[in-house]
């Protein structure tokens, strides 16, 4: 992403906050503050602190950052592209079809390992393909939203069916927990698997900034500026499917971040849909990382799922934003 830190104090400030949050998250464990960073540095490779840091804490923190960034950026890109403030990665069916892939894999007995994430990525890819097929010939706002609704409905129906006929109660619980979304239990293996598609997806999203700005003038004017709306749409959808599809394949569905973060940032950004994407990417990272770290550190007993928390905070925030928008 072409980050323009020097000329953008907001982006610079948010990046600083993200940096502090990252250090904080790495230093916070179940016992509260533990200066594991320094212990690990002191004892070198092979020590217990080093192991905890690299195998447990680092992958989870890094996944949280990637997930927040993918959700925030894709939400802002889709809202700009579809010129619809209600758009988020879920709208184009990516999350729902990734969820379908995951529950099918769990239903066939895939537990730990690569099967669930792979099935879920496959699901996201197929969902995207279906969106393209439905909307072919007219890759514009209205047809895309229609295609997304159709794919969402289809994936939701199939997911209900799979959950309904789940062979064992254990699988049922696995499916439901996946659908709620959580970063708990993620490890280096997960991170290694999704880091490449996630980063490629986010980079693809970053190529849409100029096109989104041009699109503010309408399709005809944007085209006359050399923008191809089809290319922009493909880039936005592919970027979303790759980044969000890959990340939710290991974290499960984490909702509301893609919808809420661009709305929270919009008043600060005002006149630039491209800048909104950059700012939302960083702000999304902060949000997901902070939420996940608080869950990890402060909640005892049965683990609360991250997706539940983001939804719980996201929905009222969205309500407030909507109320304020409706009044002005």
């Amino acid at each position, binding site marked *: 992403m*072409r980050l*323009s830190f020097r*000329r*953008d104090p907001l982006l610079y400030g948010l990046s600083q906050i993200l940096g502090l949050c990252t250090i904080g998250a790495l230093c916070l464990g179940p016992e509260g503050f533990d200066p594991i960073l320094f212990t690990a540095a002191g004892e070198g490779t092979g020590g217990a602190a080093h192991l905890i840091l690299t195998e447990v804490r680092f992958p989870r923190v890094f996944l949280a950052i990637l997930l927040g960034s993918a959700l925030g950026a894709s939400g802002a890109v889709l809202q700009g592209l579809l*010129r619809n403030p209600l758009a988020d990665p879920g709208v184009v069916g990516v999350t729902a079809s990734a969820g379908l892939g995951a529950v099918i894999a769990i239903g066939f007995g895939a537990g730990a390992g690569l099967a669930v994430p792979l099935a879920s990525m496959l699901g996201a890819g197929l969902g995207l393909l279906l969106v393209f097929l439905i909307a072919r010939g007219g890759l514009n706002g209205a047809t895309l939203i229609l295609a997304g609704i159709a794919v969402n409905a289809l994936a939701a129906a199939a997911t209900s069916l799979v959950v309904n006929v789940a062979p064992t109660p254990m699988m049922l619980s696995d499916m439901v927990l996946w659908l709620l979304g959580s970063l708990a239990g993620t490890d280096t293996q997960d991170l290694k698997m999704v880091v490449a598609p996630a980063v490629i997806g986010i980079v693809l999203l970053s190529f849409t*900034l*100029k096109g989104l*700005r*041009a*699109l*503010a*003038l*309408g399709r*005809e*004017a944007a*085209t*006359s*500026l*050399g*923008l*191809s709306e089809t290319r922009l749409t493909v880039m936005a959808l592919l970027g979303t499917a790759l980044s969000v599809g890959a990340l939710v394949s290991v974290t499960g569905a984490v909702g509301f971040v893609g919808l809420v973060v661009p709305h929270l940032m919009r008043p600060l950004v*005002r*006149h*630039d*849909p*491209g*800048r909104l994407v950059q700012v939302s990417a960083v702000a999304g990272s902060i949000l997901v990382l902070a939420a996940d770290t608080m869950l990890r550190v402060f909640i005892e007993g049965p683990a609360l799922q991250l997706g539940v928390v983001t939804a719980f905070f996201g929905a009222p925030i969205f309500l407030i934003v909507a109320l304020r928008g409706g009044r002005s």
Partner: protein
Amino acid sequence: MTARLAVETLGLSRAGRTVLSGITLAVDPGEIVCLVGPNGAGKSTLLAAIRGALPASGTVRMDGEAVNGKRLRRHPERLAFLPQERIIAWPITVEALVALGRIANGADGTLAGLDDEGRGAVERALADCALTDFRHRLVGTLSGGEKARALLARALCIEAPLLLADEPAAGLDPAQAARVFEALRRRARATAAAALVVVHDLALAAAFADRIAVLAEGQLLAFGRPETALDARILAKAYGIGFRQDGQGGISPDFAAIGGGLPR
């Protein structure tokens, strides 16, 4: 002199219906050509065909070189287009709006991302459109005329040798409309940029056009100096109602003579 834009026997059919046929016209450097004609005559379609947005037969040349849609899409800095719809789907300041035009020249669409040439182009466009004092205003707070000029400045900011504008003064009062055309003329005279402008107001066309093309049912009825093209008989044929010449070069529709009914 090589014409900035030369359209030769351009024809276009959509869904088996001939929309344009045998259009031949030229716009010279520094010249403003106005395209007039009734609704549905094919004016906007002609602009779309020239910029290659719709497939058409015939030839379009810019400075002697044959161009097509593919070529123009690769070089958006050669042709600026100002659509009729005044869409600004974002709360944006006037100068930020104008800077969006520089995307055609390879800029990233932000003010901060402009190079010196780009900044100069934004300043010149603001000055030509008399918007320098409005630069920090949000476009949503402007009057209709100011907004129309801001969008014109967005198109001028590309500093393309050719501008196609679709009713840049639609819905404006006479003074505001004149300001829009004054900005166009200032730019055309100063830089030898050429403009082909769709306009409905015949008085505006007569005042600001160097040449006028009269289009009706997809065919050119006349193309020439305003005093020859804006002929009562030609216009009557184009619009299907009577026109009255006032003896001092002015011409206007003879609404009073319509009386009982219009031809359908």
